[in-house]
């Protein structure tokens, strides 16, 4: 599976789950995915300067009837924590957080960021799922959006390099 094919599957999965507003900030590993978001029809794409503002944009979008997602690196998730706590969690606003998992096993960078990503999600009480198999992506995205709406909370999907078609799959992980 190439990165471009994987990107198409993820964006189609988001659209099938009803997502129609996506706020993004680039990471090199998200390049193909963000290109696909830019070209997606029927989706409002908001390129951000800092990830925290994306939480506000998604909250505003949700309040007027949009289904919202953000795509960012885990460093950006850390940047967003105050807004996640005092807006998304405080007002009970569902948003899909698609977080590129930098510092995952086998990466040569961001080991500290990678090591703290899941503990921070756990501390915030945000349920998350690690995505490694692109075959599961459409169904997992759909279920995550259902859970976000049911629980009225953000749900995180951790995007790994193998999901994004940027290294060989490890199916037993």
């Amino acid at each position: 599976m190439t990165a471009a094919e994987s990107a198409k599957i993820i964006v189609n999965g988001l659209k099938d789950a009803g997502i129609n507003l996506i706020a993004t900030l680039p990471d090199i590993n998200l390049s193909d995915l963000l290109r696909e978001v830019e070209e997606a029809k029927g989706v409002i794409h908001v390129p951000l300067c800092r990830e925290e503002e994306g939480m506000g944009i998604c909250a505003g979008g949700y309040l007027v009837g949009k289904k919202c997602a953000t795509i960012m690196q885990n460093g950006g998730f850390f940047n967003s924590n105050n807004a996640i706590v005092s807006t998304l969690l405080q007002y009970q606003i569902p948003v899909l957080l698609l977080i590129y998992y930098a510092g995952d096993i086998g990466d040569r960078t961001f080991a500290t960021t990678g090591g703290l990503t899941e503990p921070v999600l756990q501390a915030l009480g945000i349920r998350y799922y690690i995505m490694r198999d692109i075959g599961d992506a459409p169904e997992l995205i759909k279920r995550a959006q259902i859970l976000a709406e049911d629980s009225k909370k953000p749900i995180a999907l951790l995007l790994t390099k193998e999901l994004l078609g940027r290294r060989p799959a490890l199916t037993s992980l």
Partner: protein
Amino acid sequence: MKRYDCLQALAAEVNDALVVSSAGAMTLEWNSLHPSDGNLRVRTLGLCSSIALGMALGLPHRKVVALDGDGSLLMNLCSLPTIARMQPGNLVHIVFDNEVYEASGSKKTATGAGTDLVAMARAAGIKNSQWAKTGDEFAKVAVAALRGSQLCFIGAKVSTDRTAVPPFPIDEVENKYRFIRHIEKSENIEIFRTNLPASYV
């Protein structure tokens, strides 16, 4: 110039616009002048402009007003280039600049040392950015912004005077539900969908 007087002028013209207001006394003043389920009080310092942007993009035919403060906007300056990039013609971004963190003990903000938020908004790409220097001028530019269809940024230097008003009567979750029900009713759309339990399907 007093913030309360500016808000009064705005309340007379705001009609069914959605109004997002930054945390602090301004929210209380606004809600006493214009109580509405279309008002949202923001709790995250800085996020007012971004929440308003999300609303403006989501409902492009509806006017959205952000009532921001200098301390708040200084914390989320990057919302200005993002707003400029998206150019929502239905967004009016108003900043009441009293040069202090009013809700946090009235310490000075950077605008008291010369930072010009209107110049920053213009430099970020919001062409229609201006200071309103008097109450009359504020009323004039605010009315023009509300009636027009162009992205506007209005700065108003105001005193630190507060007006005695009642507290904001509802919490964040009730604010959310009331706001969404207001949108569902006024836009004739369904936002909360109640699905049948799986055993019924």
